[in-house]
């Protein structure tokens, strides 16, 4: 506990120390900004190393600068939501920290001006400007192509009214809102993708998230995901959480792991502490996910996309909670709230899948490497039907967006959309496609519940408990090796029968004697 208080004190004191500059007093910022690029020019006039730093970060490169393994990062891998960046880069670029990507960005992202405000705006309005400029694709963030929001804006008027200059004069530290403007809304809707990240975290209750709730620790994302030279800790592509099983010295730098603040034996009950070498903190302390009243996607069937209404127009269908369960641009989607995680051993590495990689029915395209090493972590599991090449049995890219009718969201024709995307990737495609079910594992790290809501023993320590599908771990109470009990109780019963028989004979003989 002392360690936590000390860490918290350090973390919470940082913003106070950092506030040595009041940007509203800088004359260079008191100008009428008319373009986003002009804002960046003003920023880098003083912060002249910032762009260089950011160009080296995963937020810019969308891949890891790590030559030891095959390229990973969103630029390269296939995920079950928006399949691939390469052939859709112009629109995927809405979430890039620059000012857009060129239409086909296959192997790397060139350096260019960095959009400072997307992370450092404190008014909460900037992301709206950014995402609703020319070229941004409504459909990426709004599963119904923005129809519900359009109706709201028509009746209520816009919510975002700050001018660029007002935003610039109030720049500051990143916040849950700024990080969330990309990381909460990816996957097509609020909370759609990660399961443990949604806009509910902005005003979370303690029960929803002890760390980010204002009544709880009141932390911002960057308190755990600390940065050095604009490079952040805690990416899933280089997660340290499974590796940190012992307390880590502050001299090692920022970690974004539970253990770095709490130590590896943080509980009062030493028997509970005995779990921490095998069970990750998250496993007990994130008892369920998508708990903020916002649903996360559990299934996405892309094969159903492309159906148009009688007037040959795209249409949307909603469930009773307003979730989009069908859209012509997206296909069929299913949702869940307060879900039970799946559990698996995780050593920090994921097996990932790239465009053109072999695929089989039901294959996990993103999954923790399944060796029984590391610790047992909770995961959000998500199924998705993705296009594949029937003859070559490889995953295919999609052309979702673009200027001509070949893009799925223009022409609603899968054949054309896949032809165009495979052309962009210049890959060997037989021309014969179908859809295949894939599985995605996504680690759960946010939405930590109060200790009183953590899993109780019996959740796992019973037959068919939460760990039932996890191999290589012995749980008292789970009746493993149940064959032993069956034979042993049989022997006990036979013994009881034998002594009762012996007693009965004694009684019969005694009666006959008398």
């Amino acid at each position, binding site marked *: 506990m002392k360690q936590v208080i000390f860490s918290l004190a350090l973390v919470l004191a940082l913003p106070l120390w950092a506030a040595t500059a009041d940007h509203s007093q800088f004359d260079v910022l008191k100008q009428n900004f008319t373009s986003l690029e002009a804002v960046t020019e003003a920023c880098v006039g003083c912060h002249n190393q910032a762009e260089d730093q950011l160009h080296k970060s995963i937020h810019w490169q969308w891949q890891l600068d790590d030559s030891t393994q095959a390229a990973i990062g969103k630029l390269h891998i296939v995920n079950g939501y928006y399949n691939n960046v390469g052939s859709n880069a112009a629109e995927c670029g809405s979430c890039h920290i620059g000012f857009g990507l060129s239409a086909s960005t296959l192997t790397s992202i060139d350096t260019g001006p960095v959009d400072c405000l997307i992370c450092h705006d404190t008014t909460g309005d900037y992301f709206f400007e950014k995402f609703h400029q020319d070229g941004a694709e409504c459909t990426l963030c709004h599963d119904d192509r923005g129809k519900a929001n359009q109706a709201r804006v028509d009746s209520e008027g816009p919510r975002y009214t700050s001018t660029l200059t007002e935003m610039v004069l109030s720049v500051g530290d990143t916040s849950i809102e700024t990080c969330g403007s990309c990381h909460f809304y990816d996957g097509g809707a609020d909370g759609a993708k990660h399961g443990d990240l949604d806009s509910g975290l902005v005003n979370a209750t303690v029960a929803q998230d002890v760390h980010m709730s204002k009544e709880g620790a009141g932390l911002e994302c960057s308190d755990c995901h600390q940065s050095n030279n604009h490079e952040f800790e805690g990416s899933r592509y280089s997660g340290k959480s499974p590796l940190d099983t012992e307390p880590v010295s502050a001299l090692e730098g920022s970690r974004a792991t539970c253990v770095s603040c709490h130590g590896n034996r943080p509980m009062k009950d030493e028997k509970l502490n005995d779990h921490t070498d095998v069970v990750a903190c998250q496993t007990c302390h994130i008892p369920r996910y998508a708990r903020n009243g916002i649903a996360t996607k559990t299934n996405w069937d892309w094969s159903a996309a492309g159906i148009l209404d009688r007037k040959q127009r795209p249409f949307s269908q909603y469930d009773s909670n307003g979730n989009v369960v069908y859209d012509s641009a997206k296909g069929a989607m299913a949702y869940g709230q307060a879900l039970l995680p799946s559990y698996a051993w995780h050593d920090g590495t994921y097996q990932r899948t790239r465009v053109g990689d072999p695929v089989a029915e039901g294959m996990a395209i993103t999954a923790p490497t399944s060796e029984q090493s590391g610790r047992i972590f909770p995961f959000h599991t998500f199924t998705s039907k993705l296009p594949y090449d029937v003859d070559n049995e490889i995953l295919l890219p999609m052309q979702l967006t673009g200027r001509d009718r070949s893009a799925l969201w223009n022409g609603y024709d899968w054949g054309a959309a896949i032809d165009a995307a495979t052309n962009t990737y210049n890959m060997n495609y037989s021309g014969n496609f179908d859809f295949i079910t894939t599985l995605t594992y996504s680690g759960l790290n946010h939405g930590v519940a109060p200790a009183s809501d953590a899993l*109780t*023993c*019996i959740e796992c320590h*019973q037959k068919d408990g939460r760990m039932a599908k996890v191999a290589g771990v012995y749980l*008292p*109470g*789970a009746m493993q*090796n149940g064959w*032993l009990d069956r034979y042993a109780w049989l022997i006990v019963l036979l013994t009881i029968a034998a002594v009762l028989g*012996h007693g009965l004979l004694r009684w019969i003989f005694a009666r006959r004697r008398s």
Partner: protein
Amino acid sequence: MRVKLFKGYERFWHWTQALLMIVMGVTGFEIRGSYSWLGFELAIDVHVICAWTLIVLWVFTIFWHFTTGEFRHYIPRKEGVVAQVVYYTRGIFLGSPAPFHPSEQQKHNPLQRLAYLSLKVFMLPFIWITGMLYYFYNEPFVQWLGEFGLGLEQIATLHVVAAFIIILFFVAHLYLITTGETVGQHLKAMITGYEDVPDKKPEAKK
């Protein structure tokens, strides 16, 4: 003749141990997952508290055995074993006199000696040691055993095997105490300390 067989401490030890072991059996099989009654967490707490209590009792009892010389009652003897087996399998039905009668010098018949000795030097240490390894499974000295294939799973399984062996002892024990002159004779002795045994001396003079 009334013989004082079981001293006060001996009876206290026997009944406290009996109670603790029954509670540990009941909670132990709940921890195993055989049924749900107290709840896993409480079952563990009760099981562990009983275990430490029993260990303290054993320490005192081992001390008692050696300071009073009572351990001599558990030294095995060959003579009389066969006669006792023959009695249990034949004589007891025909109403033959029991081949052995307890005295202060020999409280237990030759088979009892063997049974109780095996309880004390084999069954109880077996469950005691596996239980301690189970409880301290995550300490370095137990983790080290894992390198020889004795991990938590193997330790827990052996602990359960030990429990079943003791259950078999318990069944036999409960039945055999009914084989005295009367059904309740032995039980009464363990409660009051005294047992009525036939007066041997006149027979010896014949």
